[in-house]
């Protein structure tokens, strides 16, 4: 101890001192610390309160339910005794959103790639601006456009798909229509396309110039450069964009409610009329629901929340798996 100079002692003390102790103890620092901590706790508190309220509302309905909440395909919470289950809603929600994501993501990424790498600088800045604007338009606008313009043509499209791919059970069945889960998926795809495209473009803008030049200098063509330097770098961002689109598609209400005609029971033939999603079901039946009926709808909403959460976690896991490389 005696041989240690003051400077050394200070250095050792600084080494031991963790980051959180770097505060200077000044009033401003303290104030900010409390403000930050306070708002964090407030958000958590509000969320917990909402969750507790919803669960509390849902429990009586679930108690009264005579059917299995997870496996039953009927939704009759207003009957006596009430019988309801989410199986059909879950199927409709997951299926229509997946279709939307599968259609929208490649198209959106294609648009983003075109704007970022294939168009001239002038066109790119103009188009980029337009895409960002489109992404800011509430998706219900596209939904209504889809319902009024696209849906009338969907019967023919569905028939064509049914004729070619009918051997796949999903696209099979007789008498395909336009009020189907597939149509809902297509409308949802249009609704989520701009946001996926806008985020992907943002992601591509982040790709370091050095990576792109490295690929070009190796003698990569434009497409090879995109494959070597752009897509791998933007991978997690693109997954994030697709997941955000999927989440939006799942929560989308009115457009889907306008498209689907309710036919009870899960129908694996998604080109046929029928189907329901969590959101469309809530939109269609909340106003006329009894006390138990509302509780049942709230319970279904909670399930939607859990599904969205699981999807988000899955997406994070996919992104984290190659974190070493990003």
């Amino acid at each position: 101890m005696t041989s240690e100079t003051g400077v050394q002692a200070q250095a050792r003390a600084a080494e031991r001192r963790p980051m959180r102790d770097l505060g200077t103890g000044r009033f401003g620092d303290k104030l900010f610390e409390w403000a930050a901590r306070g708002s964090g706790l407030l958000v958590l508190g509000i969320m917990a309160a909402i969750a507790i309220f919803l669960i509390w509302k849902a429990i009586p309905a679930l108690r009264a339910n005579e059917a299995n909440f997870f496996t039953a395909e009927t939704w009759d919470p207003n009957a006596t005794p009430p019988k309801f289950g989410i199986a059909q809603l879950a199927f409709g929600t997951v299926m229509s959103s997946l279709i939307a994501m599968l259609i929208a993501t490649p198209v959106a990424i294609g648009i983003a790639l075109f704007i970022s790498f294939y168009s001239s600088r002038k066109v790119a800045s103009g188009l980029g601006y337009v895409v960002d604007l489109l992404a800011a338009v509430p998706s219900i606008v596209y939904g209504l456009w889809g319902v009024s313009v696209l849906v009338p043509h969907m019967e023919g499209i569905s028939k064509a798909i049914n004729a070619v791919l009918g051997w796949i059970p999903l696209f099979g069945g007789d008498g395909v229509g336009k009020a189907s889960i597939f149509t809902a998926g297509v409308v949802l795809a249009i609704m989520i396309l701009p946001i996926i495209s806008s985020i992907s473009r943002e992601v591509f803008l982040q790709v370091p110039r050095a990576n792109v030049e490295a690929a070009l200098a190796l003698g990569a063509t434009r497409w090879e450069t995109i494959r070597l330097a752009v897509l791998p770098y933007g991978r997690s961002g693109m997954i994030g964009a697709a997941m955000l689109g999927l989440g939006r598609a799942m929560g989308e209400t009115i457009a889907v409610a306008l498209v689907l005609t309710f036919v009870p029971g899960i129908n694996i033939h998604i080109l046929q009329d029928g189907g329901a999603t969590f959101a469309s079901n809530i939109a269609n039946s909340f106003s006329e629901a009894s006390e138990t009926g509302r509780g049942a709808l709230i319970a279904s909403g909670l399930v939607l929340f859990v599904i969205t959460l699981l999807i988000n976690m899955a997406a994070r896991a996919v992104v984290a798996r190659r974190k070493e490389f990003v």
Partner: protein
Amino acid sequence: MAKRIEVSGLHAYYGGVHAIEDISMTVEPRSVTAFIGPSGCGKSTFLRTLNRMHEVIPGARVEGKVMLDEEDLYGPSVDPVAVRRTVGMVFQRPNPFPTMSIYDNVAAGLKLNGVRGKARLDEIVEESLQGANLWNEVKDRLGKPGAGLSGGQQQRLCIARAIAVRPQVLLMDEPCSALDPISTLAIEDLIGKLKNQFTIVIVTHNMQQAARVSDKTAFFNIAGTGAPGRLIEIDDTSKIFTNPEQKATEDYITGRFG
């Protein structure tokens, strides 16, 4: 494996800005030519005209002639992509592909050239990493990310990536300026070894480095801000550093510049 570069009457522009003016020079095969000169005099710009990387910047264009042996790099039927496969490049900041393993970084250019088959790829990857004096350091972790290496190792990885495709010419733009002295020495050793196979052009800010590694040295300068860069003189390195023809060169190498 190595070709002669002959440049005549070369001008390069960034949009309306005239960046380099009327450059003519010959670079001999299997030699090292160093470019020196003050910042902003167009060394990087000129280097990038030699593998048609200049034109990837929007609005940038080139006038004049660059011959690689018998081939005019700016000929009307020449594909710039093909040029870049023949003339490799190493950048100032090491830029391995961040999402790729060490192995995949080296193999990236090979795959572009249609080299297939694991055995063949393994062989060339090892050879290139040996060639870049990096093999012994990374042979046990080829599957690990290239971005996890030290700066000097990353730069040698980039050199391995560039030489894996067997270019005729290797261009290096201040390859050591982001590196520590030990890594710098490692790269300089490597340049001495690579010149047996490749025609090498290196831009450097460090005059000792130019003196150590190069056979010929070219001095570039600008008349003033906004004026295009010019080639002042190119000669044997020993001559440039002991008895240059031009006063400007002498002022620069003796540090009396500006």
